[in-house]
């Protein structure tokens, strides 16, 4: 009955026999993984080597002082109190005061500086990861939940940070104490020292037994936390839909499910990692019993003096304490490694490749050619593919892409901006293959208005200036005026200094589009890509900004996607797409005269 009662406090195990078996087999590989991960963290820590050395010095000083204190007190008791000779006691106590002050100061300084190093390391890893995000190809982000990636930046980093703060000093001072005690013990009795050290292999094996389990558990725990984070992010960003469909309860249930996964892993991680200090305690006691037992018998036979055993048993206890600390730290290190591994996996992802790296910034004229270009997003699941696309745009021309949704219009733009690279065919800009032009060079002369206008949590002014950071306030206002955004901006209480929030109600979707058009106007590019730039704007306003857009397109190569065929009536070239293929292309008048697909679309739109 007790058993069944107890069972309700125990969760179903997370680890399977296979897990443990495989970790046994992978023993070598795993150890080298750990070494690699630790090595990489160390490399960042090591950047502050000078400070690190000073810290180590402080640790040595504090270790010596903390041994010196008790030694001097022992001397006071022996020399003064027992002998009842109190001359010189005052100066001894004075020395002790200095020792203790020194001890406090050295402890303070080592911790103070170590915090600096730890935080700097985490800072470097954080910014490194963030910079890495910027260099990764778009395709990388398509597959991953935002919240999951965010978790690596905060929750995983937190593990590393707290471990670095405490572990480093602990490990070092434990090693010093360990070596010191060992030397003293050895000088007293090599035999007993040997006996005491018998527990080390046992300690090693049992720690291995535990860490073989915790290593995997910590990793799973971080994964579970990441996936929970992903779910929270998604539900929160999609809150309107959750509410509109009254799916709150289901979301709560789903959350509880994921949350209970985390609970189960966390439980076992706690249980296993908690076993280490307890095992160490047991081993300590065993070691003491061995020393006392064997030592006692040896003493009876006269091999060692009784005094030696008494003092030695004290040292044996001291000997195991740092070992205990070390094994405790080992667990912390493992949880940090679990976090760091997740960070480094991303650091090792393949970046956007650039053949044209290092090339000088070159003026782009804006001749665009697609030669037999084919592309699919995901080779396993072919959604939104384009096939054998051929077209040529001369500098300064405006091209309109029309066709049903999902025909591949946006894909063409994304290829031109090199968010993705085509699997077949080539794209030429000014007769150069696009791969030979660096992304930097290419995008610096392009401006984009994306289908979904994204604005940052910043002021309106900063959001418009995003197109060109050097733009003056006047430039910003001018662009806003051209984009017909000035009036509504001025009607906001803080005007251009209004801070936008991610999902706030302060401005409408159409107004967001106006701002992103203003942003493109500020950029002053050679190639302009407008992807449904005006879809949420009312047509009267659109008509008003049409002129500005046309002026903007003048002299620049522009690619325009629009469902409202009015929007593109001045295009030089019209490309009609259907299911990823180019089915008609040519000048507007010619296409109308041809009475083909475009003509039909036009007909329908004016019915």
């Amino acid at each position: 009955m007790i058993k069944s009662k107890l069972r309700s406090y125990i969760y179903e195990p997370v680890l399977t026999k296979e897990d443990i078996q495989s970790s046994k087999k992978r023993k070598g590989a795993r150890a080298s993984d750990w070494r690699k991960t630790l090595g990489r963290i160390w490399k960042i820590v090591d950047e502050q080597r000078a400070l690190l050395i000073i810290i180590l010095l402080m640790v040595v000083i504090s270790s010596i002082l903390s041994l010196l204190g008790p030694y001097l007190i022992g001397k006071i008791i022996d020399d003064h109190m027992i002998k009842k000779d109190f001359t010189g006691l005052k100066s001894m106590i004075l020395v002790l005061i200095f020792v203790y002050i020194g001890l406090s100061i050295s402890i303070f300084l080592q911790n103070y500086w170590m915090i600096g190093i730890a935080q700097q390391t985490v800072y470097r890893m954080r910014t490194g990861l963030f910079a890495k995000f910027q260099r990764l190809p778009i395709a990388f982000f398509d597959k991953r939940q935002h919240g999951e990636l965010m978790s690596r930046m905060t929750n995983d980093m937190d593990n590393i940070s707290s471990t670095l703060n405490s572990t480093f000093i602990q490990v070092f001072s434990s090693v010093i104490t360990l070596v010191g005690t060992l030397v003293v013990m050895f000088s007293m009795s090599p035999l007993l020292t040997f006996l005491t050290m018998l527990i080390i292999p046992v300690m090693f094996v049992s720690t291995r037994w535990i860490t073989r389990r915790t290593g995997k558990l910590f990793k799973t725990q971080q994964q579970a936390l990441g996936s929970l984070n992903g779910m929270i992010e998604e539900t929160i960003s999609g809150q309107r839909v959750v509410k509109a469909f009254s799916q709150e309860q289901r979301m709560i249930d789903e959350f509880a499910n994921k949350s209970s996964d985390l609970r189960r892993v966390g439980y076992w991680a706690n249980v296993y990692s908690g076993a280490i200090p307890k095992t160490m305690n047991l081993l300590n006691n065993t070691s003491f019993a061995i020393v006392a037992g064997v030592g006692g018998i040896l003493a009876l036979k006269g091999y060692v003096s009784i005094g030696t055993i008494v003092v030695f048993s004290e040292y044996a206890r001291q000997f195991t304490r740092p070992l205990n600390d070390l094994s405790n730290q080992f667990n912390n290190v493992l949880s940090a490694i679990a976090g760091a591994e997740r960070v480094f996996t991303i650091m090792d992802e393949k970046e956007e490749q650039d053949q044209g790296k290092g090339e000088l910034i070159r003026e782009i004229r804006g001749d665009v050619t697609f030669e037999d270009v084919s592309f699919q997003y995901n080779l396993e699941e072919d959604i939104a593919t384009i096939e054998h696309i051929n077209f040529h745009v001369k500098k300064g021309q405006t091209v309109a892409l029309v066709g049903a949704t999902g025909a591949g219009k946006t894909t063409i733009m994304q290829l031109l901006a090199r968010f993705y690279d085509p699997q077949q065919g080539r794209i030429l800009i000014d007769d150069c293959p696009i791969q030979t032009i660096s992304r930097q060079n290419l995008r610096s002369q392009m401006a984009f208005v994306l289908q979904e206008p994204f604005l940052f949590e910043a002021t309106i002014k900063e959001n418009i200036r995003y197109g060109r950071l050097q733009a003056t306030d006047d430039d910003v206002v001018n662009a806003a005026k051209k984009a017909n955004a000035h009036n509504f901006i001025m009607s906001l209480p803080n005007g251009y200094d209004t801070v936008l929030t991610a999902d706030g109600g302060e401005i409408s979707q159409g107004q967001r589009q106006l701002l992103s058009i203003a942003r493109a106007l500020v950029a002053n590019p050679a190639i302009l890509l407008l992807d449904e730039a005006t879809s949420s704007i009312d047509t009267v306003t659109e008509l008003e900004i049409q002129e500005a857009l046309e002026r903007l397109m003048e002299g620049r190569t522009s690619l325009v996607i629009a469902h409202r065929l009015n929007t593109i009536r001045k295009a030089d070239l019209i490309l009609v797409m259907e299911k990823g293929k180019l089915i008609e292309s040519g000048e507007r008048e010619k296409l109308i005269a041809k009475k083909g697909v475009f003509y039909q679309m036009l007909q329908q739109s004016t019915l």
Partner: protein
Amino acid sequence: MNTIFQYIKRYRLSIIIALMLMFVELAVELTQPLLIRKIIDEGIVVGESHTIWLWGSIMMLLALLAFLAGICNSFFAGYAAQNFAYDLRNALFKKVQSFTMATFLQFPSASLITRLTNDVTQVQQVFFMSLRIMLRAPLVVLGSLIMAFYVDASLAIYLCIGIPVLAVFMYMMVKKSIGNFALVQHKVDRVNRMIQENLQAMRLVKAYLRGLYEVSRFEKVASALKKDTSSALRLMEYIQPILLIVMNIAMLAILWFGAGQIQNGKTNIGDIAAIVNYTMRMTGSFSMFAFIITLFSRAKASATRMEEILLIKDGIEEVVLPTKIEAPYKKGEIVFENVSFKYPQTDRYVLKNISFSCKKGEKIAIMGATGSGKSTLLQLITKFYEVEEGRILVDGVDIKEWNLKNLRQSIGYVPQRSLLFTGTIFDNITWGKTKATKEEVIKATKQAQIYDSIMDFQNGYQTRVGQKGVNLSGGQKQRLSIARAILRKPEFLLFDDSTSALDVKTESALWKALEEEQATMLVVTQKIRTAKGADRIILLEDGVLSAFGTHKELIASSILYKKIAQSQMELGVKGDD
């Protein structure tokens, strides 16, 4: 803190068991020196091997007992801590789900995410630690103090001199550091926000080559976090050295005055040695103390942040409000009566004095300039925001009296931005109605004109939707979210400009297919074509309803409408109209 304690209390039993097991361990640990003394004094010194074996084995047995107690403690402590965190997380999530949109917007989403994961973890860790080791340090200190007094009260009193000073000092430190750690968590929010923003805007950042700029912006946020974390942690580092100095000076005082007492013959050396020994034990535990204080302050800061959410009383949706209407008598009807609205914490009215009504099965188009309040009008019907002036009747009943769940159950809302979730296309369509059959799904997708596209995908309905639907075109996303809405067979369909990315042919097919649903439809649109297909049109101008009628009526009466219509005349084929 009280609210959080409620969650701890639930696991009273396992906490008590865990603590008892910890006491067992502690008791064994404290008796050990006595046993060792016995082995040495009565065994080794006297040369009694029998005694050595006897007490040696007793000691081993006790050690084994402590070991077992320690292992069992892990189970109970783990159970309590993990369940506590689990309950807390779920409670927070549940609370967040019950927020009204207005409350929701008060918290940046990144901050909510931090509170639900990072903050919970902080508190949980401290809770687990306290069930295992935390109480040990205070107990050792207390035990040693009692023992010291027992040995010689006149000397032990020196140990107490420092205590009031230390108590005040520690109190101040804790108070200050809680504020500091709250600041740290706030900075974690900022970091989170910045990453979220960049992930969402990745294409934009890349298109405008702002990678380095973003990195430098992030560096500012990250270095603020570094600075605050460092100074919060560094403040805590004052505790240990100061505790050490005070304790060590007290010990030296004992030695000094003890020496005097020995001279007078009041005390013997053994007592002094014992008190010094106890003092050293206390000092040893103090470094643990500093650690505990740090953890506690951190946990307290996190707990406060969670309570901020848990304690919100206003701005909660009353989902379970008893519905007063069992069988609505005016099915499919929406009436606006003098509705005015402004967003919370703003002064500007977005909608002013709107009145109109629509009958069952009617299709109303809503048009108007950018920012004229079209989306807001729809969001009032779904009760995302509360109407303050005027009232809205749905099925003849004021929406304030509607059971929120029933109300929303009867509405199919298609938002302006198609929000899709991680999962397959099938998951996304059945998202609002998980029990839908395959046939229903096929029908809804056919109606939404997305069936053929789905069939063209290699994996059909099982195709995975990338993060927020990146692998789908704008129009595909819109049609998926339309399918999701009509699958529920709602009485009302609200389209918030959600056909903007559809080409003409697809759109007309969509409207035709929806006719059989007989739902009352409110359609925000920019396209005159769409408006023409509606029964009546609402024209909004700066939040005011400036015209309401059929296409023909509006063409005749409204200058603005005429202007809109003209703007959309296709110049080339004008004659065909």
